[in-house]
């Protein structure tokens, strides 16, 4: 057995065919208790360490522990890995691992015809079949003839495999996900050692038995596949070519949390993070609660209003207030966000969007809070809105949001979503030292101090740390006189102050670099996207452009203000198309801003676009036969 690992690395060249593939999508699906998220992450880690590009999409049930065997209880992890730059977790699945009947029922439609299905027989007992209304066992009734089915009693084999390590019963059974992982590793020619190391590191001290059992299970699965030549052909996906640098795998929520910590340590002022838990945003709170030494004060408030109001108070106090939620919570925060607009205090509002309206489908993704971000406050209340395109970009964007909030003395809305927040990708680790420090000291001279004087470059008022001698001032949500900040009901002053608040946000355009356009620089169709649909919309545009169409693609990071060059770019195309996971909010915003026709491709299904459907949608907007 000592050679197997090497075998894995070298490939089983002698014994069977190995086929080179450019990319593969594998989906692990099972009951919530089956450990599919762990299996998926392990496979992901093995792939990134090997050097593939990856994109992942975990799909949890809404319940904590949904009843086992039901459709609602299925937990899945989709991984797309490749030898080239990829940006989506894959449209269709090449290999499906189904630990029970429910998993099969739910995900079979995603499996390519001719794809591989690995099924645990023991999850297809009469009970399991009944729970999901299978009249007969699909593993036996011939209905899966179009797929390459590999079935084994994985549960029983796992139990046998881990017995020597000393594990029995329920605990032994729990290792079956690692057994499957072994099979998958064999199939895709992954090295085992890194996973073994990882397992040892994690469990060896506290639970050496578990560690040994897990390793034994992986090895057994691997051997099983190897020995009985389960697969006539195995596959290999070579390393992708990455920009040189040091990489890690990162999820959007983790990147966001690290960006906040970076802002705290590079801004020269602490960060106050006021939050109330909500799916899918809570992980940011969890991460930051562990990063207190970076100068992040986390405050789990009694509700969302207290979360944002305390953050506004902290910003008044002189450290940066950040608050975080998802749609329903952001709605609740709107009144207090407006207080920051009116008092002109910095504030970062993180919205990890989810499917709605109301409670909606909390574990599903959507990018439908754009118009709420822009307009969801009483009266004329401008705030900048920024949206990351990928999990890794969350870091850069949240740092940018914090920097702009402070520089312009304004709340900034950061729109992530469940897809970005939970999804992961390889991330080139940025140089911490190169992050621009920001610590504004403008306007803080007690001589001639005016709390509402404006910095001519930014339109921002001074940011006063409470307690500074000589700068005592009062602020209020009531309209204020220019410069002095005293209460004013003067009509002309209100007009000027309203304009000043809008001008300030408009000035942020000076922070936006020229907009890169992919593909045709003018022509028939410009696709405009924002947020988490970046990968799919661009990949589809690449496909259509490669087919010789006059198609361009622009992805927006700032939604307010829009890039200053966007208006002129839009004019260079006959048609504009905005694909969005909402009813067409950016399309409306572009029309509303530029007064030009904009087409919308809107799908509201709580999940990401597939590249395939977008290719079709682009073609539908292009001249026929052109």
């Amino acid at each position, binding site marked *: 057995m000592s050679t197997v690992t090497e075998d894995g690395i070298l490939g089983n060249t002698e014994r069977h065919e190995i086929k080179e593939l450019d990319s593969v999508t594998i989906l692990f699906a099972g009951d919530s208790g089956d450990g599919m998220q762990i299996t998926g992450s392990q496979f992901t880690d093995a792939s990134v360490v090997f050097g593939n590009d990856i994109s992942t999409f975990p799909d949890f049930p809404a319940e904590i522990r949904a009843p086992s065997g039901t459709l609602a209880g299925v937990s899945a992890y989709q991984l797309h890995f490749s030898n080239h730059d990829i940006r989506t977790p894959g449209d269709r699945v090449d290999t499906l691992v189904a630990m029970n009947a429910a998993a099969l029922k739910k995900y079979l439609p995603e499996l390519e015809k001719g794809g591989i299905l690995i099924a645990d027989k023991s999850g297809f007992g009469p009970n399991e079949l009944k729970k999901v209304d299978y009249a007969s066992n699909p593993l036996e009734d011939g209905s899966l003839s179009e797929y390459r089915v590999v079935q084994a009693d994985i549960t029983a084999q796992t139990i046998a495999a881990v017995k020597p390590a000393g594990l029995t019963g329920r605990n032994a059974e729990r290792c079956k996900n690692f057994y499957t992982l072994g099979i998958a590793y064999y199939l895709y020619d992954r090295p085992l050692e890194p996973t073994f190391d990882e397992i040892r590191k994690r469990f060896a001290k506290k639970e050496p038995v578990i560690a040994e059992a897990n390793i034994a299970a992986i090895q057994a699965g691997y051997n099983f596949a190897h020995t009985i030549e389960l697969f006539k052909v195995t596959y290999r996906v070579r390393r992708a070519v990455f920009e*040189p640098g040091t990489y890690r795998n990162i999820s959007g929520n983790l990147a966001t949390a690290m960006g906040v910590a970076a802002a705290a340590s590079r801004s020269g002022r602490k960060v106050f993070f006021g939050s109330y838990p909500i799916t899918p945003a809570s992980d940011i709170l969890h991460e930051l609660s562990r*990063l207190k030494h970076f100068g992040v004060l986390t405050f789990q408030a009694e509700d969302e*209003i*207290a979360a944002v109001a305390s953050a506004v108070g902290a910003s008044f*106090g002189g450290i940066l207030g950040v608050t975080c939620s998802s749609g329903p919570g952001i709605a609740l925060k709107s009144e207090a966000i407006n207080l920051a607009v009116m008092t002109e205090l910095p504030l970062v509002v993180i919205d990890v969007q989810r499917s709605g309206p109301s409670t909606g489908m909390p574990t599903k993704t959507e990018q439908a809070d754009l118009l709420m971000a822009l307009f969801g406050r009483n009266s004329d209340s401008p705030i900048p809105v920024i949206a990351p395109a990928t999990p890794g970009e969350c870091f850069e964007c949240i740092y940018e949001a914090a920097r702009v909030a402070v520089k312009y003395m304004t709340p900034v809305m950061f729109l992530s979503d469940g897809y970005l927040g939970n999804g992961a990708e390889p991330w080139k680790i940025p140089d911490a030292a190169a992050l621009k420090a920001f610590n504004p000291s403008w306007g803080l001279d007690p001589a001639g101090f005016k709390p509402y004087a404006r910095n001519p470059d930014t339109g921002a008022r001074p940011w006063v740390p*409470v307690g500074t001698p000589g700068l005592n001032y*009062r602020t*209020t949500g009531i309209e204020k006189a220019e410069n002095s900040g005293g209460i004013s009901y003067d009509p002309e002053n209100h007009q000027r102050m309203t304009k000043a608040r809008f001008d300030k946000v408009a000035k942020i355009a000076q922070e936006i670099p020229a907009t890169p356009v992919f593909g045709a620089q003018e022509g028939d169709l410009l696709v405009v996207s924002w947020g988490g649909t970046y990968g799919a919309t661009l990949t589809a545009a690449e496909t259509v452009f490669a087919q010789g169409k006059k198609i361009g693609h622009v992805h927006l990071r700032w939604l307010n203000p829009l890039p200053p060059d966007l208006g002129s770019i839009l004019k260079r195309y006959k048609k504009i198309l905005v694909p969005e996971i909402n009813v067409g909010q950016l399309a409306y915003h572009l029309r509303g801003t530029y007064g030009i026709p904009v087409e919308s491709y809107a799908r509201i299904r709580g999940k990401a676009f597939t590249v395939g459907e977008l290719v079709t949608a682009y073609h539908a907007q292009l001249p026929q036969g052109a």
Partner: protein
Amino acid sequence: MTPTTTPAPAKAFTPQDFHSGLIVRWCPGCGDYAILAAVQKVLSERGKAPHEYAFVSGIGCSSRFPLYMSTYGFHSIHGRALAVATGVKAAAPSQEVWVITGDGDCLSIGGNHFIHALRRNQDLKIILFNNEIYGLTKGQYSPTSRKGLVNKSAPYGVIDEPANPLRLALAAGATFVARTADNDMAHMTEVFRRAAAHKGSAFIEVLQNCVIFNDKVFEEYYGVKTRKDTLIYLHDGQPLLYGKTVERGLRLDGFSFSSVEASGEAKIHVHDEHESTGALANALAGLTHPDYPVPLGVFRQVERPAYHELMYEQVDAARKAYGEPDLAKLLKGPKTWTVS
């Protein structure tokens, strides 16, 4: 109430030094004027300069208070004074933060922040201007309005049972709970002094007369002429005595008080601000006119670590455990690979 000894001020301030200069715009005769004067007087004695204080309020007549102070001030939005103050204190832990709020602002829309700020023992001095009415919006009933009160939004009389602010504060876990009255400058200043000296959440209800929409609502018991018979002043360690000639007192009968002749035999209960279970303060907070004398003074004062202390302790502990924050290390995380 035991008078506190104030340390000799480092610098001499006058109450005027605490005035922002803005013209005070409450109705002539409003009780708010006296409270403002009392606060400015107390602060002027304490040696701290105006910039060392922050006053935070919500919205209401009373909530304009911070605008009249020369300290840092945040006149925020309705009901959120305590939430905003939470952030101010966290950001500037050495700042002394006072919160000014009304019965609507604090107990109606702000009720949730109220119970949670007290529970956490946030180091805030909270003055509730209780006029039993919404003043600024011109006279609707508030959570402390009495049942049956006829007003703009209850033309047939209020049907809601009034809230008892002190009992709520006690149940929420406030470490300092007191009551005073806008027509008694000496008492007010003494209570404010005590609150200022307390570390942790200090809650003070001030009976405040709104001359316009709820005039004389407390007059029956806090009126200068009769108050010796209708109020009882709490003094720590002293028996619960009252009356013009100190002729009456409160005796404990099981769980409730009886008002009795303070003759030799009657066992008059002795006030104890620090009573461990909070039951005494709770019982006193339940005494209402005309069945009982209405208590004024400090109901309860106990010590627990303040929230900002615990918050910063954790930050310090994390610093100690993990050393200076290393951003580069954080970004790298546990597992990387290098492409060259």
